[in-house]
């Protein structure tokens, strides 16, 4: 042992360290190692004793353990055997259980499926029903089905794919139903558009039948029916006009839309459509003034349209409201009135006019039946009445013109009683005197009188045709008819006469026209009588027709005067005075003689003429003769007049004066015609009588013998005489008394010129 090792032991153990040191450093080392060997021999003896004691027990334990080991092996084999047996037994059991579990599960599944399927089945049937309904166009039930499908059946069924498909299909179906029903509506609208004229026609016909209904006609109808074996009114056709139309599509549509919740939209749509249709209906398809058929069609269509609307007002479930109907109607009636007004104003055929009027009256009556206001139409009828009168007048203007153009204007002459009666039948004439005369008898008037009279009657007939059925009273109709007849005569006929006068008409014809107008005027009273007879009103005679043709007569008279004056002019144009005639022939110039005989001939043949006209004619003629003769004398182109020529003219004037004094026509005042020649006569007397002193003395005084001779005329004539005398005596020496005469002449001329200048200043 070394020091280092002791130190280490000291470092570890405080007890054993110092012990070792003391041993190491002291001298006891053998004592100590002997002690230690003794201690080791003691411990070995104890261990050997302990081991001898436990060895037997140990052996026994080993033996026992070996025994346990064999038992354990035995147990192990037994248990393995049991295990195998159990294993074998439970294997089939497990299979069965598994199968059972599977079967149970299938069973459950089937039950669940059936349950679900049962829920789906009604849905599917409904759906198929829906399809069939849609296909059969039974939209309303289809819609109901759809409703059921959507709200009842579909929620019940689970969220299957096909269900969602159906659900998504529902709006589409609904839309298509709506579309289809709209299409139906359109068909319906189109249909009623086609039918409404028939409806209107039927309504008009019924109104007409109703208006024409009288006891007699009813009895007759009954009889007819009895004969035909028809009892009552059970004939097949519809009884009411609206029955012509099948409204079911409309109702269906309405139902459908109410179901769809779009009732209001539908009503709006319907009204808009109908309004549009109304506009179309209101535009006539053709010219209404060509034929009655187009007017009928037009009115039928309009009427039919509103009859249907009116029907829907009561039966249309709010489809048509009173306000809407009246509103549309007032628009329509205004349009109808204006269309008719425009078109009727173009009509020139009175028959057509009458038919149109009849249609409108019927139309109005039918409207009343249906409670629709007729307002502007009565006014239209009045306007048409005026136009009708105009049209008739135009017609009759042609008739009158025709009568006048082809009239010979000769008094009607009849050969026998038959012809006589023929005239007397057509014209009211007091034939008492004529009755006595032998045939041929001559009426004072020409053929135009009965012809025009008959035509005026025709006109009145035609005119009254219009006012028939307008519900006017007899006296109002009569008054209007009188007015129109007077208008016809005083305007149309007079107009025709005036037109007649524009072309030259022979004198005799003019005379006859004047006579004829008188007879026509007198016949007006009979016309009034005729009017009151056919209108059943009292005779009104207050309306004086006296001077209805006065204007025409004045025209004719003026023409007669003009004609005579023209003839006088023609005669005077034939004058062939030799102004330097030495000796007068001793007889009147031939043109004067011709003229006067012509005039007296003409005036005799004018004896039919009213006195007034004849007086006017003869006045015009004589005045013309006097003026022309006087102008001849004072014509500046005639430079010289011999006293022979003056005497010849004087002779002619005397002839004319004789004619004038001879009262060529009755009704003249004594000496009246001579006054036309007065100034000429005074001039001639003055110059021929050479009474210058008394002329110049009396000049400017009232009532002088030559008061009508102006100094200018006297001077003019005197100049011409002087010229002629100078010419004839240019180569001869003047005798004394001739010189005196010449001197006097110059003095007188000077005086006259002075007077002229005084007058001029």
């Amino acid at each position, binding site marked *: 042992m070394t020091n280092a090792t002791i130190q280490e032991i000291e470092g570890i153990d405080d007890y054993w360290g110092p012990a070792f040191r003391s041993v190491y450093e002291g001298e006891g080392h053998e004592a100590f190692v002997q002690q230690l060997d003794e201690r080791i021999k003691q411990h070995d003896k104890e261990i050997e004793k302990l081991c001898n004691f436990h060895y037997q027990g140990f052996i026994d334990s080993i033996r026992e353990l070996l025994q346990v080991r064999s038992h354990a092996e035995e147990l192990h084999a037994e248990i393995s055997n049991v295990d195998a047996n159990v294993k074998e037994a439970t294997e089939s059991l497990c299979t069965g259980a598994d199968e059972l579990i599977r079967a149970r599960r299938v069973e459950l599944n089937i039950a669940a499926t059936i349950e679900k399927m049962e829920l789906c089945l009604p849905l599917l049937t409904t759906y198929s029903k829906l399809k069939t309904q849609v296909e059969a166009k039974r939209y309303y039930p289809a819609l109901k089905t759809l409703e059921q499908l959507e709200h009842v059946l579909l929620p019940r069924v689970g969220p299957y794919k096909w269900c969602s498909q159906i659900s998504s299909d529902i709006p589409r179906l609904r839309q298509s139903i709506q579309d289809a029903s709209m299409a139906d509506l359109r068909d319906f609208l189109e249909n009623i558009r086609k039918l409404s004229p028939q409806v209107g026609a039927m309504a008009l016909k019924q109104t007409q039948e109703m208006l024409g209904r009288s006891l007699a006609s009813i009895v007759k109808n009954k009889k007819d029916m009895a004969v035909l074996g028809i009892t009552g009114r059970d004939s097949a056709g519809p009884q009411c006009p609206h029955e012509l139309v099948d409204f079911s599509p409309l109702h269906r549509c309405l139902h459908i839309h109410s179901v769809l919740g779009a009732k209001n939209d539908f009503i709006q749509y319907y009204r808009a459509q109908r309004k549009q249709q109304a506009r179309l209906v209101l535009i006539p398809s053709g010219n209404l003034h060509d034929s009655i058929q187009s007017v009928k069609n037009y009115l039928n269509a309009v009427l039919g349209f509103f009859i249907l609307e009116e029907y829907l007002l009561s039966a249309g479930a709010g489809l048509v409201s009173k306000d809407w109907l009246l509103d549309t109607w007032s628009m329509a009636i205004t349009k109808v009135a204006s269309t008719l007004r425009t078109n009727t104003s173009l009509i020139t055929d009175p028959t057509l006019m009458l038919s149109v009027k009849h249609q409108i009256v019927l139309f109005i009556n039918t409207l009343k039946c249906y409670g629709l206001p007729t307002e502007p139409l009565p006014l239209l009828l009045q306007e048409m009445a005026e136009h009708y009168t105009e049209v008739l007048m135009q017609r009759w203007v042609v008739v009158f013109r025709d009568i006048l*153009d*082809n009239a*010979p*204007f*000769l008094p009607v002459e009849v050969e026998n009683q038959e012809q006589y009666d023929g005239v007397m039948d057509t014209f009211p004439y007091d034939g008492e005197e004529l009755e006595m005369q032998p045939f041929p008898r001559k009426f004072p008037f020409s053929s135009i009188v009965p012809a025009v009279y008959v035509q005026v009657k025709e006109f009145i007939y035609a005119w009254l045709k219009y006012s028939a059925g307008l519900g006017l009273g007899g006296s109002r109709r009569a008054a209007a008819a009188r007015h129109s007849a007077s208008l016809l005569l005083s305007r149309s006929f007079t107009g025709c006469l005036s037109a007649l006068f524009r072309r030259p008409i*022979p*004198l*005799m*014809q003019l005379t006859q026209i004047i006579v004829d107008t008188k007879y026509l005027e007198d016949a007006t009273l009979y016309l009034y009588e005729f009017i009151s007879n056919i209108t059943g009103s009292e005779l009104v005679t207050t309306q004086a027709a006296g001077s209805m043709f006065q204007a025409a007569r004045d025209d004719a008279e003026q023409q007669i005067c003009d004609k005579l004056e023209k*003839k006088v002019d*023609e005669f005077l*144009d*034939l004058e*062939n*005075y*030799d*102004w330097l005639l030495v000796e007068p022939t001793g007889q009147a110039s*031939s043109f004067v003689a*011709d003229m006067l*005989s*012509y005039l007296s*001939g*003409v005036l005799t*043949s004018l004896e039919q003429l009213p006195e007034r006209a004849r007086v006017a004619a003869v006045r015009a003629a004589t005045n013309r003769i006097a003026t022309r003769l006087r102008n*001849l004398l004072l*014509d500046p*182109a*005639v430079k010289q007049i011999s006293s022979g020529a003056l005497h010849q003219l004087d002779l002619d004037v005397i002839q004319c004066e004789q004619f004038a004094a001879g009262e060529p026509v009755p009704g003249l005042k004594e000496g009246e015609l001579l006054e036309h020649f007065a100034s000429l006569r005074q001039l001639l007397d003055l110059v021929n009588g050479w009474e210058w002193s008394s002329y110049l003395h009396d000049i400017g005084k009232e009532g002088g013998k030559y008061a009508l001779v102006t100094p200018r005329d006297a001077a003019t004539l005197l100049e011409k005489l002087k010229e002629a005398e100078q010419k004839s005596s240019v180569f001869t020496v003047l005798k004394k008394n001739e010189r005196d005469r010449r001197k006097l002449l110059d003095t007188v001329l000077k005086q006259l010129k002075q007077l002229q200048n005084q007058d001029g200043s």
Partner: protein
Amino acid sequence: MAKTYDYLLKLLLIGDSGVGKTSILFRFSEDAFNISFISTIGIDFKIRTIDLDGKKVKLQIWDTAGQERFRTITTAYYRGSMGIMLVYDVTNEKSFENIKNWIRNIEENASADVEKMILGNKCDLDSKRQVSKERGEQLAIEYQIKFVETSAKDSLNVEYAFFTLARDIKAKMEKKQEASNPAPRSGAHQLRANEQQRKPTSWLSRCSLL
């Protein structure tokens, strides 16, 4: 005052009612035609001035009513006439036959030297013709009167007829004037001398011009 004419000739149209006297005159004076028939009442006249060999000749043509009832009025005008047109209607046999009566009328009432001419009017109506042109000429030769067929409607020979008649009268008057110089200026109506009948040869040659 300047004279408007050199000669004044008074002519007369006579013949049955409806033969067309007024139409002929209307055609001659107005150069117009009116289809409608208005019978003349009494008497009327028209004046037309024509130019004949440089002379202004005024024709005063008297148109008479053909109807019997006006006979007294119309015959009064025969006396002063210098020329008379006898008119018949070629479509009316009766009117042709009556020409003889009218000639007798002239002989009784007119001056002996009056110029005459026969007109067969309405020769445009060939389909209705009853009197042939030859018969007209035959009659004219019988009486030694000029003859021409006319149509007032187609304005055929109307002018010719009046001009011929006027020319003949004028020639006669001029001859008369030469015979008795100094001649009256133009008072042709005063001519009274019994002039010998004209030779028919002269007008026959003219007629063939038709």
